[in-house]
């Protein structure tokens, strides 16, 4: 379904501060058109294992909260539960983060932002789904505007069950994620690149006003 583009995304003439007019086509000029590629480990296993160990010790969560579960992030990142002692920190922008925590139900509108955020993160990157809503829809299973299975739209490395999961559950979940990373099993970014068309078609099936490039790099 073709949508008319929002005015700020349309091709147009722009006058620069020096008075020179030039053409801008936001979707092509502001984004790189290259699609994601699968990145295999380039070194001997022992070196890759070392890399994975290092990655597991360096989890940077994107401060992006959706749904009710985002509430549990505050005690988690403050002295009460203090996730920082496990080497887990929060960052304000996708460029500086490698762990996207989807903290509950995702409305279709938020899904669009979540996909953009995920694609802007640098590999290797991980996704954790929090709560029943990300697993099978939870109590929003019959809602007209929330998705039911997060892994239809982005590769999920780990789910943490609960409605909502307590900070302790998150801490345990992060420890499990570290194990997955060390074992080289947290390959979400590669999975995304491999099945890119499948993910895109799922995403476009629910996001009816698709007005962004296919890959928001």
């Amino acid at each position, binding site marked *: 379904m073709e949508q008319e583009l929002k005015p700020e995304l349309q091709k147009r003439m722009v006058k620069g501060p020096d008075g020179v007019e030039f053409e801008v086509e936001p979707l092509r000029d502001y984004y790189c058109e290259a699609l994601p590629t699968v990145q295999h480990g380039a070194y001997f296993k022992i070196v890759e294992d070392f890399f994975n160990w290092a990655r597991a010790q360096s989890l940077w969560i994107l401060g992006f909260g959706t749904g009710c579960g985002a509430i549990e992030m505050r005690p988690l990142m403050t002295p009460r539960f203090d996730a920082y002692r496990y080497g887990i920190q929060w960052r304000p922008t996708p460029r500086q983060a490698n762990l996207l925590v989807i903290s509950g139900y995702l409305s279709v*509108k938020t899904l669009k932002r979540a996909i953009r955020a995920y694609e802007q993160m640098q590999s290797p990157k991980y996704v954790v789904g929090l709560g029943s809503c990300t*697993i*099978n829809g939870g109590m929003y299973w019959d809602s*007209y505007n929330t998705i039911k*299975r997060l892994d*239809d739209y982005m590769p999920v490395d780990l789910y943490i069950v609960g409605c909502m999961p307590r900070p302790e559950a998150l801490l345990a979940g992060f420890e499990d994620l570290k194990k997955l990373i060390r074992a080289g099993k947290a390959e979400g970014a590669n999975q995304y690149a491999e099945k890119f068309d499948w993910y895109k078609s799922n995403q476009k099936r*629910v996001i*009816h006003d698709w007005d962004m490039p296919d890959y928001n790099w």
Partner: protein
Amino acid sequence: MRDLHTRLQHLFPLGELTEQRPNLGFVTVPAAYLRPTLLHLRDLEGYTHLVLLTAVDWLEEDLFQLTYLLSNRAAGRDIGLRVKFPRQAASMESIHDLWPTAATYQRELREMFGIDFPGSPRLHEEFILEGWNDIPPYRRDFDTLKYARANFSDRPGRETRDPEQHMKQQLYPDGA
């Protein structure tokens, strides 16, 4: 509330007063008298605050109902005006010139119920939904479950239990 209702009844053809609390009442107004009643309440009776504007879908009666809740802060009293009008080609007079905030409510009602408010600013811009392509989702003839089934895939293995039966089983397993 009674005194206010009696005073208003002399001026407008109002319905019966439903007193929810001593300081909260609801009354039905014919659509044609909505604006004069609102103006009267705002300018002469001190009901200066539009608390909310919301809709009810009376599907069986083929009517929409709008509720305009007004508050008199000084007297600590609230009154709700109810207006009913046909669901077909649903349209209601806009009151954004009386309370600018009403424009936001009207935008939401246009999107979620499909009620038109001719002249209301930015009425047809998207409010909460993006790229919605079905009938307005708060209408009662919109089937959310069917929509969810058609659009979002299920994860196999999800079980649903009847809460009453399940709790009975849990609490009284021997059927006592």
